Structures are given as structure tokens and as C-alpha cells.
């Protein structure tokens, strides 16, 4: 069942990736692209694919997989179906870092200043959440995350309020809505090492997540190191999602939805959710990114974060209603 599901998801992902490479302002035919890459007459299609769309696709895959995987790990760890990476304040912290870079003008001096500041912001908030929630259980972790998230958002709002010029304001808004537009191989090089390391840490929690389905006391009695699992999950999320937020801004709801989409198909077993959730997350972000650049309203392309939120919010409502029906 699991193997079958993963094969289908991978096939869909490959299809979505091919479409993502060909679709956009300039629609390319596969034949033209192949001919161009093989050294044919037209140089432009190869340039568009390798320098513009491929880095964007790589980022979409990495970011989606990070969000899906960390969502699945956090839901398994806290046994809370509403848990998601944003919950730990990592997204808000990353946004704050980026806003600081834009607000104080670092971004105009150096192109990668925004993602670098965002990375520091994301790691910083994750570290604070981890230190504050070191003792105490899941509730303390969730509440700490919400509090830190709120503080970071408040400061971001302050920056928007006091923004020196409309351009900074516009840049901040665009960043908060999340986008993969104009991302290059530099962004890939900046984020990918952290994403890979983070995903490795997240995968290491897999055996513990199954035991945690029985609650912390039973998991501990089965030889699981619950405290270590929590640190692995949080550090992994901070690295993978922090690096993702750093290059793309906040992309909401993917981390929440992806695990729920695949969970019933793997018999609800927490560790079996991980791989399909990562692929589903990558699929969602790739589709959302392709849609965001092909659906253009009055000359303005939709931001990817707006797109995922538009799909995500109704899903979230459905989830709440569905859970209300199942729990007393």
C-alpha cells in the first residue's frame, strides 16, 4: 500500500515538474527545450529552463518537501492534528528577519541579504522556542510557539507601519505573501544544505513517532527517548523550514494539509506518513508555483502564499468541522 502510494505520488510529482518547467509567461514545447539543451539552433529555451525555471522548481520541491515532512513530524510528535511548522514561530521569525533586511536597506546593497537575515531570524526564534519549551510538554511547546510567533508578527507590523518608503512597504508585503519569482541558483545554494540537513534530522524521528502514538509514558517505556525526539523534530524543522522561509517567504498551510491528505491512505501510522507527506508537500508547492505564474490577473501574478492560503483555508475549516464530528 505504502509503496503503491509513493509510486503514484512520485509519478504525479514528475508530471507536475515537467509542466512547471514548460509553463509560464513563455510556453515551451518539450521538443524545443530538448533540442535547445542538446545544442540546437535556439539558445533561449535552454536558458529559460536552466537559469530561471529549474532553480525555481528545485526550490519548490525542496520547500514543499520540508513543509510536508516537518508538518507530519510535528503532528506525530504533538499528536495534535493542527500542528504545523508555522506553529513554532519559525515562519514569523523568518519573516521578521527579512523585514529587518528590507527595512534598514540591507536588501538594496546585497541581493542575498534578505534570505540571510530571514535565515538568522528563523533559527533565532526556533532556538528561543526550544529553550523556553525545553521543560514541560506539548502544550508548553505550542503556547511558546504561538507567543513567539505573535511577538515576531507584531514587530513586522510595526515595520510595515513605519516603513520609510512605499517601495519597502511593497517589498515587505510581497515577502509576507511568499513567492518564488526571480529566485536563482544562488538561492538554491543558500537554502539546500540546511534543507537537506533538516530533513535528515526529521527522518531520524520516524521510529519514535510510532511509539508516541501510544502517548509519552508508553513511548518512553518502549525505549523511546521522548525528549531527544522533540529536540530532533524542532531542530530539523528550524533548519528545513527556516531555510525554506528564508528564500521564499511564508508559504502557509502546506505543512498542515500535506500530512492529512496522505494519512488515511497509510493506515494513520505516524512514521508511514512521513515520506508520502513530503512528496505531497513538494507536489502542492510545485503546482501552486506553476499556477501562481500562469494565473495572471490584470497583469499581476498571484503570490504563491496567497494561492496556498486560498486553497488551505477552506481545507482548514473542513478539518475543524470533521474533527468536531469525530471527537466528543
Amino acid at each position, binding site marked *: 500500500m505504502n509503496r503503491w502510494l509513493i509510486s503514484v505520488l512520485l509519478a504525479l510529482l514528475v508530471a507536475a515538474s515537467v509542466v512547471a518547467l514548460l509553463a509560464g509567461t513563455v510556453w515551451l514545447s518539450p521538443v524545443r527545450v530538448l533540442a535547445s539543451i542538446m545544442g540546437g539552433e535556439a539558445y533561449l529555451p535552454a536558458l529559460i529552463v536552466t537559469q530561471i525555471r529549474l532553480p525555481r522548481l528545485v526550490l519548490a520541491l525542496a520547500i514543499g518537501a520540508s513543509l510536508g515532512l516537518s508538518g507530519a513530524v510535528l503532528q506525530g510528535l504533538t*499528536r495534535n492534528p493542527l500542528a504545523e511548522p508555522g506553529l513554532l514561530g519559525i515562519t514569523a521569525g523568518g519573516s521578521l528577519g527579512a523585514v529587518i533586511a528590507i527595512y534598514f536597506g540591507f536588501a538594496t546593497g546585497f541581493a542575498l541579504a534578505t534570505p540571510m537575515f530571514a535565515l538568522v531570524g528563523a533559527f533565532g526564534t526556533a532556538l528561543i522556542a526550544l529553550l523556553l519549551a525545553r521543560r514541560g510538554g506539548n502544550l508548553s511547546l505550542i503556547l511558546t510557539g504561538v507567543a513567539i510567533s505573535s511577538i515576531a508578527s507584531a514587530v513586522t507590523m510595526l515595520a510595515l507601519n513605519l516603513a520609510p518608503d512605499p517601495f519597502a512597504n511593497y517589498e515587505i508585503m510581497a515577502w509576507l505573501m511568499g513567492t518564488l519569482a526571480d529566485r536563482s541558483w544562488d538561492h538554491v545554494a543558500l537554502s539546500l544544505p540546511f534543507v537537506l540537513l533538516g530533513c535528515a534530522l526529521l527522518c531520524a524521528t*520516524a*521510529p519514535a513517532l*510510532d*511509539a508516541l*502514538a*501510544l*502517548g509519552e*509514558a*508508553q513511548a*518512553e*517505556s*518502549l*525505549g*523511546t*527517548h521522548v525528549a531527544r525526539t522533540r529536540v530532533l523534530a524542532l531542530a530539523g524543522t528550524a533548519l528545513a523550514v527556516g531555510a525554506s522561509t528564508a528564500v521564499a517567504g511564508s508559504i502557509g498551510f502546506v505543512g498542515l494539509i500535506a500530512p492529512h491528505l496522505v494519512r488515511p491512505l497509510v*493506515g*494513520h*501510522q*505516524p512514521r508511514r506518513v512521513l515520506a508520502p507527506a513530503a512528496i505531497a508537500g513538494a507536489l502542492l508547492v510545485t503546482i501552486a508555483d506553476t499556477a501562481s505564474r500562469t494565473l495572471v490577473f490584470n497583469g499581476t501574478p498571484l503570490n504563491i502564499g496567497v494561492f496556498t492560503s486560498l486553497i488551505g483555508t477552506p481545507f482548514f475549516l473542513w478539518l475543524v468541522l470533521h474533527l468536531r464530528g469525530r471527537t466528543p
Partner: protein
Amino acid sequence: MSALILNHVSVVRGSRRVLDGIDVTFERGRLAAVIGPNGAGKSTLLSVAAGLLTPNAGSISLDAVPLAAIDRRILARRRAYLPQRAGVEWPISVERVVALGLAPSLPAFGGLPPTLQTRVADTLAQFDLTDLATRPATELSGGELARVMMARATVGTPEVLIVDEPTAGLDPRHVIEVGRRLRALADGGCAVIVALHDLDLARRIADDVVAMKGGRVLAAGPTQTVVTSEILSALYDAPIEVVADGEGGGIRYRGW
């Protein structure tokens, strides 16, 4: 043969001594019931005995080896622990839940080896769960869930089984059933430690009884020496009478 020995164990929570200098020995092949009023420290004693809670003072040893010195996975293979109101938080199938009991014996990655798969099937059959094997564990009745959790705890054939209030919320038929299974495990050579509020059940199935009050052991020893009118009345601060009649007797609560 003594298996688990608690030596002068104390646990302090805040300014309160939850356990105060406990000395108890649990033996293989015997079923020990831990009784006492609410808040006496029974659950804390069980967590400490399971090695899940490190005491502030004193030591616990399994076959003369300190519990803290045993690798957590090896310890998990040798002793099983079921907390109060043990449950499952995702709708995982009964079969998978029982298989989780073998988690400490599994390699970090990969599936269940065939020998362990037969062990799961045997345990399911032994606990009359074969028909429920594919049912989500969150949809079971209280009695069925109690059986599943017992199967989960015993599938790894532990040397020591520690169970906290396994009969809470169960109807009389299931109480008797759980009691019989615990008895059978002890007869099979396992050291069974079980916290109970049901004094009649304790009297029926236990070889030894540990009576706890205010974090101390009030009395401990073979069941007939501890389950007496005097000790029980002092233990619960209520007039309790142990009566003997033709059918094995019972516990009577006087004064209401």
C-alpha cells in the same frame, strides 16, 4: 527469585514527598498488587519501578543491576509498562498497536521480521483479538481497548510487567478477564506488579500485596497477611471488614 528491588526510594515533587523511603521487593512468578487510597503514591511507585522516573534518593535494581545502568532499549525488552487510561491517539489498526510492543526488538528501519509477525498473530489470538485485528484502535469499546493494551504490553514476553489500574472503567466480566490474564502471566514466570483499587480482585489474584499510604509502605507481604480488617481500615481510614465465608469471602464496607 527476586527480580526487582526498590531500596530506600524517595521522590520529591515540589515540597511534597510523594514517595518516602520505600523498600519493596518484587519476585518472578508472583503477582504483586499495590493498593492504597488516592494520592498514596501508587502510580509514582510504578513509574519509578519501571525506570521511567528517576527517584531523588534510593536505588532500583533488576537482577542486582541498577536500572539506570541498563540500556533503555534492553530495559524496554525486559519490562513492560502500562500507564493508567492507556490508549492510542491515532486510528491505527489493532494489529499495528500490538506490534508496537515489539518496537524495542526491531531494527531502526525496515518491517517486522516473520518470526515477530507470528508472535503478533499468536498474541492477538491469545487475547481474542484476531477478529478485531484490522479495526482502528480508537473505535474500540473500553473492554476491547483494555485487551489490546494488555496484548501490546505482553507481546514482547517481558520479565517484569507493570500495570497501573488496568480495570478502571471496566464492567465486572472484563475485570475478571483482566485479572485472569494477569494471573496467567505471573504463573508463566513473569513478575507482575499491578496497582488496584478493586480490593476483592486484589485478594483473589495477588500473591503479595503492598499497601501504601502517604508515600510510605504501610504493610507489605503475602496477601492473607496484608488484606486484613485492621490493615485495610487503617489504610483507607474507613471501617472495612474482610469476611470469610464458604465462597472465598469478600470485602465489606461498614458504616454507610
